[in-house]
């Protein structure tokens, strides 16, 4: 397919692209006001800016005023984070790694942190470390309760009908189950779902009631939901539980490594921090 192309002139020169590319990554601009190299100023405005970048998780309500209502604990943690980031960025700059907008700052931090990480590889004798880790972090590995069930749905006006069908189902087995009830807009059966999953399709009340049922072949209900009423047969239910180390070994090992990395990063940052004076503005 020979289609004539219009390539903008500026794009023709590969060197130019590379210059642009590197420029984009390493744009330099100078700090607006000179601050002594070893002083870090913590001010309300800087903290706020830092927090806004850091907490930009989507779907949360506006965070602009969050700083004002923060607990002292949260605020201290945030301040510590800010200082730590500032130290690492200063160190990175000192090493001539460049300076720039927040994303570049973050990359610089990661780069320095990576230097720390490489010194934190889990030793061969990870066994004992891992066991300790598991013992102190068991709660993190909790399996949520799960349920598998099938249900017969009735529109809100058909509560009586639901009751009748329930009696019939549990006395004789001649009813064609598939033909009972009304069309439900989601599914007829649910497999290995958490309470949260069930709540998404049925609402919170139903989700909490259905987890209160026991498993077995008998039909139970009717349970109310935001859609109407449901006869439910719980095929299987597993309680929330703390798994054994063997069951979560891979995940625990991964987390342990992350934690060691983090500790090494912190130690590294702490060493660097000793060189700075923090001024609370």
């Amino acid at each position, binding site marked *: *397919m020979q289609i004539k192309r219009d390539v903008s002139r500026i794009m023709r020169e590969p060197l130019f692209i590379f210059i642009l590319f590197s420029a984009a990554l390493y744009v330099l601009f100078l700090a607006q006001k000179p601050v002594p190299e070893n002083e870090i100023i913590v001010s309300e405005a800087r903290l706020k800016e830092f927090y806004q970048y850091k907490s930009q998780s989507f*779907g949360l309500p506006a965070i602009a005023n969050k700083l004002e209502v923060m607990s002292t604990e949260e605020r201290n943690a945030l301040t510590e984070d800010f200082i730590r980031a500032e130290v690492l960025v200063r160190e990175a700059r000192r090493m001539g790694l460049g300076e720039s907008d927040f994303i570049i700052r973050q990359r610089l931090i990661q780069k320095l942190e990576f230097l720390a990480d490489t010194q934190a590889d889990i030793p061969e004798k990870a066994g004992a470390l891992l066991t300790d880790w598991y013992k102190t972090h068991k709660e993190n590995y909790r399996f949520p309760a799960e349920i598998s069930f099938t249900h017969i749905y009735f529109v809100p006006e058909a509560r009586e009908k639901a009751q009748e069908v329930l009696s019939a189902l549990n006395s004789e087995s001649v009813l064609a189950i598939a033909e009972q009830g009304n069309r439900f807009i989601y599914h007829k059966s649910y497999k290995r779902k958490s309470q949260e999953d069930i709540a998404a399709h049925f609402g919170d009340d139903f989700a909490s009631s259905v987890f209160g049922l026991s498993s077995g072949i008998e039909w139970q209900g009717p349970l109310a939901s935001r859609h109407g009423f449901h006869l439910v047969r719980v095929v299987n239910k597993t309680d929330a539980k703390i798994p054994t180390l063997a069951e979560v070994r891979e995940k625990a090992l991964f987390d342990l490594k992350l934690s060691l990395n983090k500790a090494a990063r912190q130690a590294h940052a702490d060493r660097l921090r000793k060189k700075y004076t923090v001024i609370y503005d």
Partner: protein
Amino acid sequence: MKMSHFGRHGLTFIFVFFLSVSLIGCGDQQETEKQDNGSVSSLSDQRLPSKSSTDGVYWGDLHVHSRLSMDSFSFGNRMMTADDAFRFAKGEPVEAHTGATAQLKKPLDFLLVSDHAEFLGVIASIMDQKHGIEKTELGKRWKSWLDDDNLKSIIQEWVGSFDADTSSSASKPKIEYPDEAFFKGVWAEIVETAERHNDPGKFSAFSGYEWTSMIDGDNMHRVVIFRDGAEKTLGAIPVSSTENNDPEYLWERLEDYEKKTGGEVLAIPHNSNLSEGRMYSRERVSGAAFDTQYANTRIRWEPVLEMTQVKGDSEAHPLISPNDPFADFERWDETDINSNVIAEDKKVMVYTGSYARPALKTGLALEEKLGVNPFKFGMIGSTDSHTVMATADSDNYYGKFVDSEPSPERLMNKMGGILWNNRILTAAGYAAVWAEENSREAIFDAIKRKEVYATTGPRIVLRFFGGWDFDETDLEQPDYATLGYKKGVPMGGDLFVANDKEAAPRFMITASKDPDGANLDRVQVVKGWLDANGKLKEQVYDVAWSDARVVDPKTGALQPVGSTVNVSEATYTNTIGTENLATVWTDPAFDKSLRAFYYVRVLEIPTPRWTTYDAQRFNLDLPDDVPVAIQERVYSSPIWYTPIAE
């Protein structure tokens, strides 16, 4: 317009890797596999359905990149691995490059981390000093540059290493391309990671990669997905487009894999919208004409298209579908993937080969000629995220590269500093799969039979059955899905005239809103057909809608649903639209002698575009070249009607 060899090629490769890819697919052989339905039928039957799709819709992303992709790494993702991608997809939080804690609101059910096969894992392994590359000349040289943070030299050498001759089918790198042993090492790492995260019944982790062919700036990318576990996939080695950039070569290599291991594999094309009309052109890459064998081979390997993702939506184009007011959606239609501008006089031809709807139509004409439809594809979405974070929600969108993660800059900056504006990225999409269980095998098989659909993000539950005998009362049945399989075929299936009935095909459709999302506006059926004069036609029917709206008798247009979007607050309310739409629809203009396809498009009510959420969040002015609100949507795989010669 000619560029210098080096510049031309340099751009090609920069763009390939920087822009990345998405997914798409093609069709498959004419199997009309009816599901047997195992819904609960007697009191003594304690099992849940085991061989049925009556209840299992699973959500996933088959196109995510990690630091093993050359472009992901060189655009700033030095740390985030396939492990992080799987953890994120399973709903765990990860730390984004901006330092923000990123987390999905709802976990996914399956994921494929599809890193680019070309230079797969090279820089990452040099940084990690593993798989032997650290001992090679290339490894030593690039390591010293990496240590100096001199990515420029690496990229320059990498880009400059490709043969300037783009017209040949192969473009061998001129620098020391790593040997097979190296790639085996990287591949083993990929396979091992997927195995570790695969948890049948709860989460399916696929092994695969992306084959990144670009011919003359035309995006021909395919994601390669394996059905199998390590015992077979370790016998594979990612096929690189540097060996040969013709998809026919890829298919041969996929066949080699199946013969050698007894395993199964498929290729899923994507970003046909950036293929400059080549993806669904009527000509083979070699220039040869289509023949029956080619058509069979193509549809055998490429049963689905990834037709919505971060780099735009590839369903339909307003120039080709002028009567469809919803065809103008998240378009990336000005250039190919190399940023070559599409010439005005070529647009019709280019868009006909670039968008799913015209391609499905072309398929009917090709089938008439060849006896086989090479473009009989189903539809899925995926993200093509290059930061490992598979996000498709407008209010929780992490973009494509590190520089399009949430920040006050991303409304105004460009991808990689020089490419497209980040604000034109689309917060899309995911693949929805009707399968009997959540396992690699069941999901792969559903993709193969095209019982899948595409979403731009919302988890709208869509059922679509075609048959001859459906009636309105079937919809009232609690087991309507079982009836759907009993009396007809699901999405991806085929209808034939099975007896001498004069009846038109009937379609049973139900759509339910994302439980955590916006209400639904309408359900549409898109019909394409080949008329008696050999002309390709299309028609969009509104078949179910909310709020008792009326159809204008003159224009036939359904009144718009309206909008509740508050732009400055970035909110909407579900005070319009509806939770569920269901109908049995009969084609009013059916001609049993003509080939046709039917697919469903479901529209949500308008909701804020991701850029609108950003403007609110960061208190910025909204650029005026992106819409403030969009109607998110799902697209079903088609059901085809094929007349049987009498």
